[in-house]
């Protein structure tokens, strides 16, 4: 609490912001709990180096003799095949999930709907869906539709929906509502006012989130393999099972390039939309 005494004799008290107490308590809890977290002591840099070498050079031991030619062949032919499957599922999931997230995020935005009875249920649904880990969603999808691409698309759709809906309603809540008011004053209904006043404002951010979610999906797709859906994760799985760490290294290299390309594309399109 801070007190200010003005020359007129008035005393003004600036109220203490309780958030700092809360944050301090959380900090203490984290520090205390941190004492009990176990860090393996053997993992040193000296141990990591040989492992990196195994990943980024062709395997050469009694279980496998490969050349650099094999290594690059792997990167340029086999990995792209699985990558393409992964990208297809990611695009499908991102587009479907985000398209459903858009109307949901409007219904959850408190500046568009002043009534809590409208926004709260939608926020609740969104929170529930976001809480479910992507892995669980995919497993459920596999149970329902089998291990085809569809399972991946359904899993990614739900996963994308969770992220997108939350990020979007927060953007909508920070947009300029003056133009929305103007549209309502012309007789437009809420959907029309959103379409003409808010959508143009959030559109560039929407696109940039779309690409970001797509990127997350590509990376998350590794786990699809572990529930039986063919994806880039299949290679990681095979690599782990057989000790073929050069396969995994290849995936890391390819994914790095893919993510960089997506980033460049994202920057470019955002520049165009400004």
């Amino acid at each position, binding site marked *: 609490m801070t007190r200010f005494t003005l020359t007129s004799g008035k005393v003004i008290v600036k109220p203490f912001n309780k958030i700092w107490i809360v944050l301090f308590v959380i900090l203490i809890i984290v520090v205390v709990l941190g004492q009990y977290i176990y860090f393996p002591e053997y993992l040193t840099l000296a141990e990591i180096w040989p492992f990196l070498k195994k990943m980024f050079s062709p395997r050469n031991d009694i279980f496998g003799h490969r050349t650099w030619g094999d290594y690059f062949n792997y990167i340029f032919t086999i990995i792209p095949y699985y990558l393409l499957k992964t990208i297809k599922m990611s695009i499908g999931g991102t587009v479907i999930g985000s398209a459903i997230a858009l109307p949901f995020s409007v219904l959850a935005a408190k500046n568009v709907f002043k009534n809590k009875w409208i926004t709260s249920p939608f926020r609740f649904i969104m929170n529930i869906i976001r809480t479910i880990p992507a892995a669980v969603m995919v497993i459920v999808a596999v149970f329902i539709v089998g291990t085809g691409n569809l399972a991946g698309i359904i899993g990614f759709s739900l996963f994308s929906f969770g992220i997108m809906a939350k990020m979007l309603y927060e953007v909508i809540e920070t947009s*300029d509502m003056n*133009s929305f008011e*103007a549209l309502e*004053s*012309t007789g437009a209904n809420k959907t029309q006012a959103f*379409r*003409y006043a808010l959508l*143009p*404002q959030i559109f560039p951010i929407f696109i940039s989130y779309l690409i970001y979610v797509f990127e997350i999906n590509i990376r998350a797709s590794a786990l699809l393999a572990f529930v039986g859906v063919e994806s880039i994760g299949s290679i990681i799985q095979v690599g782990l099972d057989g000790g073929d760490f050069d396969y995994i290294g290849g995936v890391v290299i390819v994914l790095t390039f893919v993510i960089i390309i997506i980033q460049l594309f994202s920057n470019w399109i955002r520049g165009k939309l400004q």
Partner: protein
Amino acid sequence: MIRFVDVKKTYLNGVQALKGINLEIHDGEFVAIIGLSGAGKSTLLRSINKMIDITEGELYIDDVEISSIKGKELRMLRRSIGMIFQSFNLVRRMSVFNNVISGRVAYHSTFKTLIGRFPAQEKILALESLEAMGILDKAFARADQLSGGQQQRVALARALTQQPKLILADEPVASLDPITTIQVMDDFAKINKEFGITIIANMHHVDLALKYANRIIGVKDGLVVFDGKSTDITEDILVNIYGRTLKHDEVLGE
């Protein structure tokens, strides 16, 4: 014609903004509402297109009582009334043309407007509104590239595109510099005369109100304390409306 019958408005926080307004505003009038800030000018204006709902009394527009209408009827009412705001309320990152054509969305079904296509004659109407406001050459510029005065003209063009019978203006020139203020007020006068559209404007600058409006309504503390021709206004009447002599920022002083 607009008719207020003992209209009262009490906000949820207990503030009584309107304490029994009785008024009649006829078609084709140019009315300026003057008074201190907080006197209820904005509430009075916004109750006409139901951007604010009144709590008591009756409000008739063309003999239709509007305090109970809602849904489609309400949107049809709003469609026939243009509104101009102090801060222009354009979508800043959208083109001028798209801002102006958005005055037409209420004429179409939601589904049609979602796609964003408008009939050719409505596009021409939008361009003609811009032409009437003298900013046709800016039609495809982004709204935020325009000066304040130009943005307010875009807002006027949007209102014209609605083909309204009435335009409400809430402090339309309060955030403009003196020169553009005159230009925008001239545009209002033009709309009033050439298009025969009724104009009701809240005015901060009293001398502007007297110069442009034919009729002045003085509001004080939620009540109408003066209603008459702008030529009838005297120093004493202004002192009565404002409770004091005018401050220098309340006159534009050309």
